C-alpha cells in the first residue's frame, strides 16, 4: 500500500469541497468494511481518503409525520436496535441482522451499503422495496433521487464528483401491509447473499385480494431490481398459492444472474423463484 492523503473534514461543506476538488482520485470513507478491504487487497489506486466519520449530523433517525429519515452514516447495528423500525419496517431490521457479522454491523453504514452498489447488498435491497428517497449533497447544493434511479451498474451510482449521500427517507408502508426479507446463502451468518428477496403485500380490506405488491430481488442481475411484471400480476388478484407461484415465475424470467465462485446462474435463478414465493406466502401471513 503506497502513501495516500487523508482528510477528516469537520462539516459537510468541507467534505464536499475536498471531494469535489480532487475529482475521482479520492474516496469517501464511511464504515470502511468494503473500502478498506479493497485497499488492503491492492485493488485500488486511490490517492486519498476523506473520512466522513466526524460528520455526526449524518448519523441517526429523524421522524416526521409519515416519514423516517435515516442518516447515511447510521450504523447497520443501529437499525437493529431501533424499536420503531422493528415495528414499522421489520424487513429492514431482518436485513440489517443478516448483514455480515456483529463486528461488521458495528462499523458498516446504511449509506455505505447503498453507495457500494453491490447487487447482493441486504439493507439496500429492502430500501429499494420500501421505495426510499435518497438525499444527496454536492458542490451545486442538494438534490434528491429515488432509489430506483440511484444505481447505474455493479459498484456504480448516479453520484457525481463531490457528491455525498446524506440521508435516506422512507415512508411508513400502507396500513396492514407486511414486508418480508429473505436471504439465501450457504451459512446463516457472515454471508454474502447468493440471492436475496424483499417483498411487501398490502391486502384490500376484507383480506381476500391483494391491493398492492412490491418485489425487489438481489444478486440476480447487475443491479438490484424491482420486478414490475410480477408485482402487476398480483395487483387486485386473489391471494392464492398459484398466484404467488406465477409471480415467482415472472421474477425468474426477469432476472439474469451469473456464474461465479459462490454459485451458478442456474441455481440462483431457481432460488429467486423459491424465495420470492416463500416471501410472498410469509408476507400474506395466512393459510392459503
Amino acid at each position, binding site marked *: *500500500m*503506497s502513501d495516500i492523503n487523508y482528510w477528516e473534514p469537520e462539516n459537510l461543506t468541507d467534505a464536499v469541497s475536498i471531494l469535489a476538488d480532487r475529482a475521482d482520485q479520492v474516496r469517501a470513507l464511511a464504515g470502511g468494511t468494503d473500502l478498506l478491504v479493497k485497499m488492503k487487497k491492492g485493488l485500488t489506486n486511490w490517492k486519498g481518503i476523506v473520512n466522513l466519520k466526524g460528520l455526526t449530523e449524518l448519523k441517526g433517525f429523524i421522524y416526521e409525520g409519515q416519514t423516517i429519515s435515516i442518516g447515511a452514516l447510521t450504523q447497520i447495528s443501529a437499525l437493529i436496535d431501533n424499536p420503531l423500525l422493528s415495528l414499522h419496517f421489520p424487513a429492514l431490521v431482518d436485513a440489517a441482522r443478516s448483514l455480515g*457479522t456483529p463486528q461488521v454491523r458495528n462499523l458498516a453504514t446504511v449509506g455505505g451499503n447503498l453507495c457500494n452498489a453491490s447487487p447482493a447488498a441486504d439493507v439496500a435491497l429492502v430500501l429499494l422495496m420500501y421505495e426510499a428517497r435518497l438525499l444527496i449533497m454536492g458542490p451545486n447544493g442538494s438534490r434528491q433521487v429515488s432509489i430506483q434511479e440511484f444505481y447505474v451498474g455493479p459498484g456504480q451510482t448516479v453520484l457525481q464528483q463531490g457528491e455525498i449521500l446524506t440521508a435516506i427517507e422512507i415512508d411508513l408502508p400502507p396500513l396492514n401491509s407486511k414486508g418480508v426479507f429473505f436471504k*439465501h446463502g*450457504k*451459512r*446463516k*451468518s*457472515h454471508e*454474502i447473499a447468493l440471492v436475496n428477496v424483499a417483498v411487501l403485500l398490502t391486502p384490500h380490506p376484507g383480506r381476500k385480494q391483494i391491493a398492492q405488491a412490491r418485489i425487489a430481488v438481489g444478486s440476480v442481475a447487475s443491479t438490484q431490481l424491482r420486478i414490475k411484471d410480477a408485482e402487476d400480476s398480483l395487483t387486485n388478484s386473489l391471494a392464492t398459492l398459484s398466484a404467488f407461484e406465477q409471480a415467482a415465475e415472472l421474477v425468474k424470467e426477469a432476472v439474469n444472474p451469473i456464474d461465479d*465462485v*459462490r*454459485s*451458478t446462474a442456474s*441455481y440462483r435463478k*431457481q*432460488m429467486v423463484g*423459491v424465495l420470492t414465493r*416463500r416471501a410472498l*406466502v410469509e408476507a400474506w401471513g395466512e393459510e392459503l
Partner: protein
Amino acid sequence: MSYSVVGQSVPRVDAREKVSGSALYTGDMMLPHMLIGKVLRSPFAHAKIISIDTSKAKELPGVKVVLTYEDTPKILWNSAGFPPSPGAILVEDQYILTNKARYVGDGIAAVAAVDEATAVQALELIEVEYEVLPALMNIERAMSDGAVLIHEAEKNIYGHTPVVIGDIDAGFADADFVFEDTYYVPKVNQVSLEPCGVSMAAPDKDGRITIWTSTQMPHLVRSITAHALGLKTGQIRIIKPPVGGAFGSRLGVVNEPIAALLAMKVGQPVMLKYTREEAFLATESRHPITMTIKTGVKKDGTFTARQLTSYIDGGAYATHTPSLAGPVAGWFLAMYKSPNIKVDNYSVYTNSTQCGAFRGYGNPQVVFAVESQIDDIAERLGIDPLELRLKNHPCAGEVWLWSGWVIESCGFEECIASGAKAIEWTKKRSKIGNESSHQGSKKRGVGMGYMMHVSGARPMLHETSAAMIKINEDGTANLIYSNSDCGQGAGTSLSQIAAEELGIPFEDVMITKTADTDVAGFDIGSHASRQTYSGGNSVKNAAAKAKQKILEMAAEMMETPVSELVVKGGRVWASNKSSEEPAKSVSIAEISHRAHFGSHGNQIIGVVSEEPPGNPPVYAAQFVEVEVDTETGIVEVLRVVAAHDVGTAINPAIVEGQIEGAIQQGIGYALTEEYCYDQESGKPLNPNLSDYKILTSVDMPQIETILVEAACDTGPFGAKSVGESGLVATAAAIANAVYNAIGIRFKELPMTPERVLAALQNKNK
C-alpha cells in the same frame, strides 16, 4: 477407580492468559532491529522460471536482503514432520525457494525489510520471467498419457502402497453380493484461528539461530529446518509460544527455513507472518482422495472380501503424502474384519498447493467412503445398519490390523447403544423421509457413522516423549516438558496426570507452557492424538520416579517403611496400624526442604524419556439428524449425538470441547468446505474466509457428547485419545442421514445446495 485430579474438569492452565488477551503468540513478538519478511509467490500453477532480476528490489531503501533459489542451500528436503522411521516414506523434492513454480503461491523469492510496506513494495520490484506450463489440477489429468511432469515421476505417480491379506479373488467369489463404488472427497483447510505460517528467526554471534514458531512439533521442526539449511540440529533452538490452533497444519516445517535463511543472511531477527490468504495458498491442507471400494458380503452380513484402490492427490510436493498412504490403508483394513483384504494407494502430484496433515490423517476420507457403502450394504441385505457394524467391527482381545497389536479395551457397543437411544434411532429410522413444516418441502432423516482411531502411531514410528518433574523447596512441582499444546488442552491434561501421580493439588504443578528445545527433552510433538496417551505416560512415569524419592525421604523422616506410606493432598501419610493413634503425616514441602537443605543436598527430580507400551484404538459412533430443503438443496444438521470411547477422560470438559470443535469441521467437510481452482489456469478461487465457507456459531446444531470410558491398561490412568476422532465419522453420518431423508446417495463431498438440488431434480426426472 476414584482419582482426585484425574476426571475433574479443572480450568485450563492457559485459560486466563488467552481469555484476557495477554497470551503472547509468535506473531505478537518484537525484537530490537527486527525485520519483516515477505515471500514472492508464483502467479502461475506450473511454470519454468527463465530469469529473476532482483536488482531494483535490492536498491529500494529499507530492503536488507533479497533471496532467490540461487541463494538457497542446494539441499533437497521434505517438510513433513515425520521422524525417520520404517513407516516414513519421505520423498525429498523441495528447496527453500523453488527454481520451478509448481502451484499458484509457490515461493520464488523472499525479502526482509525494515517494515511490511517496504517488504511488499520490494516484492513488486522483483522481475520474473516465466515460461508457463500446462496446469494439472486433478489426478486424471496428471496421470494421463503424455502429461507434462511436475517432478521426475512417471505419470506424476510417486508412490504405491500395497497391502494384501488372504486371497481377494477367492473372497469375492465366495460372496453373495459384491458392492463397488467410487467416492471423492475434496481438499479442505484446517482454518486455525491463528493463520498457519508464523515464525521469527534470530541469529546469535555463536553460529546458532533461535526460531520462535507456531508449531505442533518443536523438535522435528528443529531437525528438518537444520537439514534444509545445511546446519547441525544443535545449531537451532526452537521456541514454541502459545499456538492459535493447528489441526495438523503445523505438523512439520511451514516457513521456518525461509525466516532462518533471511535472518542468517542479514544477521538480524526476521519475522515472517503469513496472511490468511497465504495460509490458504501456500500451507498444507487435507488430501483430496478418489477411492474405489469393493466389498464382498454374505447374505448374513459377513464380509468375505474388502478392497480399496485410492488415488491420493498430494498437490505440488510430496511432504506427507506417501507416508499418509500407509495410514489410509490402515484405517481401511482395521475398521471391519474380513479374511481377504487388498489395498492399493497411489500418491499423485498435481499443480495445487501441497497437502499434508489435517485432523484424522486420511481417516475422515476413508470413513466417509466405507461408512457410506456400509449403509448401502445394510439396506440391500435388509439388516439394521447398527447391527451390521456391531457384527463386523474388531473387538477387545482381537488383533487390530492398524497396529498389529491386541485391542486393549472396546467401548463401541456402549457407544452404539447410548448414541442410538439419545437420537431415538428406532423411532426415527422407521419414518424414512418424514415430512415437516414448510409446505412439505423439508424432509428429515437420521444416520450414523462409525470410526476407530489411534492413540499415537506405534509401531509405525517411535512415540518418544521426555518429561522431568522437579520438586521445589515449597513442595510445588515443575513439569519440564516440550509442551506442544496447540490449543487442544494437552498441557492441562498432562498437569493433571502429574498432580494425580504425585498426590499434590493440581495448582501446585507448573508445566512449561512454552516449549523450548534447549530446555526439554526430545518430544515427537502433537500428532496422531498422542499427547495425553504417549506424553501422559512419560509424565506419569517421571512423576512416579519423583514420588518414589519423596517416599524414601519420608520413610527416613517418619521412620516408617515406604510400603506403609501413601501420598495424598500434598502430604505423605503413614497408614494407621490402629485407629487409636492420630494419623502421622509429613508435608511434601517439609520433605523437599530437607532434601535440598538437610543432610542430603539434592533436589528431588524424576526424569524419563521413553515411548508408551501400546497404541490402544478408540471408537466412536456419531448419530445425526438432518433436514433437507428439497426446494433449495440446503442440508441443515439439526442434531449430533457423538458417542466416543476415549478411555479415561482425564479432563471431561476438554474432551467434550475437542469433540464439539471437531464436529464443526466435520459438518463443514460434509456440506460447505472445499478449495476451488480454475481448472485451466490453476488459480485458487476462494483462498479467503468470505468465499471458503467454514460454519459459524449460529450454524452449529445441538451437540450431545457421550463419553464412554473403556479404560485401557497401558494408558495413564486408563486414558486413550480424543484429539482427532471427533470429525472422522461426521461427514459419513451426515451423508447417511441425507440418504435416509431423500433417498439419494452422495458419493462426493461437499453436499452443497447446488449439488443436492441437482440430484433431487435428476431423481424426479
